[in-house]
């Protein structure tokens, strides 16, 4: 039972344009959401997070949007850069800092 889903396994974007990565969840008890970025042969690194009491959080080029009624969150990267090419995982917290991860979306930003 996949509680956190990333339905797009891959996304290709041109440098300078906006990248939008999507994530859906089923458990309404999740109270915190995170995005991680993973390069090949490295562990995931934390990117940005949002509490369920907010609907938007911004950090430089990265913005996360949360729509609780739709159980949907998205990560916007503007402008996209070739160095952003990586696999992006969304994750949701179900208490005591246990995270449930999505399946990942591979982003390719071409020059």
């Amino acid at each position: 039972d996949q509680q956190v889903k990333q339905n797009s396994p891959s996304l290709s974007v041109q440098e300078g344009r906006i990248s939008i990565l999507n994530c859906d969840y089923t458990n309404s008890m999740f109270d915190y959401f995170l995005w991680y970025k993973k390069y090949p042969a490295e562990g995931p690194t934390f990117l940005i997070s949002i509490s369920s009491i907010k609907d938007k959080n911004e950090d430089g080029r990265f913005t996360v949007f949360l729509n609780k009624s739709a159980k949907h969150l998205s990560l916007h990267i503007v402008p996209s850069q070739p160095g952003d090419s990586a696999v992006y995982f969304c994750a949701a917290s179900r208490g005591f800092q246990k995270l449930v991860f999505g399946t990942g979306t591979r982003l390719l930003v071409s020059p």
Partner: protein
Amino acid sequence: DVKVTQSSRYLVKRTGEKVFLECVQDMDHENMFWYRQDPGLGLRLIYFSYDVKMKEKGDIPEGYSVSREKKERFSLILESASTNQTSMYLCASSPLDRDLYEQYFGPGTRLTVT
């Protein structure tokens, strides 16, 4: 600087062998986690520990055990390795603070069981 290290980057073992994967963190974090990452399945939690000698099962604990004798070290044990345990194994740690959800990951160990 936050650091989580894993004993091996690549490991090849035979079916039936006992396998130990070691993880060490230098951040004095209370929580430590073991995940496996498989294509199309994302990261799945195997076991976690919130204190020395404490452990809790994650979503896929079957075929695995863990040991946490010291705060900084968390070991994953495959009692009798099988080919379906071929995977990327990731260790993570986090502080015991309910306001901090971020986990810090090691580089991963790619285990192949033949």
